């Protein structure tokens, strides 16, 4: 080990410890401002799940950019890993029928759970990002257990890519519509309905389902490309 490395380790340890000390000593000193009660009154957008009403209504603007961050990630993975096709046939010498069976059994419930999380995100925990990712996890499970080929045969990347872009366009158009009624941009135009029922909270469930669709398609594509390029680092 060179002296400069020792110096770096020492300096790094000191700096990290200093950082931790400064934060631990000053976070939480002084009282918390603002009122939580006000939060609860304000978030009555008709969605029982207040987090959903913040993410998809009050701060929808953030969520749109966040969705684009996800899209940019998918685009990057796609563009930089699409170049070559990976090996077509896998002969893995460790293969168990139990795992295969388990994957077949687990896939439908995972997809249903993902769909449930997305559709009922305004009533119970879940939401578009979680739902889409859970459903994609189901697909990922199958790709591990059955080998990538079975899934690769069903995988039509151009179609998925098109679907993702169309979902984004639809989302943005819904977000821009209120301007035509001279309401504020990104306002929730549909009636809030009866809180707690499926058809409530106006546009929140619509956004939730669209986001889940987008995240599902994007996560599937990402997983597909990483499966094809496995073991490269």
């Amino acid at each position, binding site marked *: 080990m060179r002296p400069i490395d020792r110096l*770096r*380790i020492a*300096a*790094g*340890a000191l*700096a*990290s*410890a200093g*950082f*931790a000390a400064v*934060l*631990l000593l000053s*976070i*939480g000193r002084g009282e*918390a401002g*603002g009122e*939580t*009660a006000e*939060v*609860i009154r304000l*978030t009555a957008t008709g969605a*029982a*799940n*207040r*987090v959903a*009403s*913040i*993410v998809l209504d009050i*701060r929808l603007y*953030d*969520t749109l950019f*966040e*969705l684009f*961050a*996800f899209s*940019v*990630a998918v685009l*990057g*993975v796609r563009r*930089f*890993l699409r170049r070559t096709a990976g090996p077509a046939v896998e002969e893995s010498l460790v293969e168990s029928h139990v795992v295969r069976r388990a994957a077949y059994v687990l896939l439908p419930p995972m997809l249903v759970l993902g769909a449930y999380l997305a559709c009922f995100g305004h*009533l*119970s*925990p879940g*939401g578009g*990002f979680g739902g889409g990712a859970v459903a994609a996890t189901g697909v990922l499970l199958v790709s591990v257990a059955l080998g990538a080929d079975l899934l690769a045969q069903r995988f039509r990347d151009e179609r998925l890519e098109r679907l993702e872009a169309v979902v984004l366009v639809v989302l943005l158009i819904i977000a821009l519509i209120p301007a035509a009624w001279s309401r504020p941009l990104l306002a929730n135009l549909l009636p809030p309905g009866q*809180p*707690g029922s499926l058809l409530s909270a106006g546009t929140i469930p619509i956004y939730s389902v669209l986001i889940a669709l987008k995240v599902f398609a994007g996560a599937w594509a*990402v997983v597909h490309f*990483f499966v094809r*390029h496995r073991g*490269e*680092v």
Partner: protein
Amino acid sequence: MTAGVVTAVLLFAIAALALIVRRDLVFKLVALGLVNGSTVLLLVSLPRGIGSRPPIAAGAIPPTAADPFPQAYVLAAIVINFAVLALALVFVMMLVERYHTTDARRLEALIREEREAADAEGEDA
């Protein structure tokens, strides 16, 4: 101060140290993932934001419910963390394809050599 805040700060410091000390890019990326994970934990565990019940109710929310705003914030942070980690990994894969190493210092040296060769060509001209 809650246990979550203390954990978050410690996790941040440990991961930052790993970012400084570890030379292997895979370790660096894992450390970066943990840095971002610790900010999520910090936001959700703020003394004012924590509660024993989820902020979900058809009617009025019980006063013991957690503050929903930090939760909404961190959802974005989690998705962004995924995007960063996936994209970083893609570039690491492409660098490995060319240089067959994930050692940050070796990569730095190899790429600097190439650049200096190009510079020397310019000096001659």
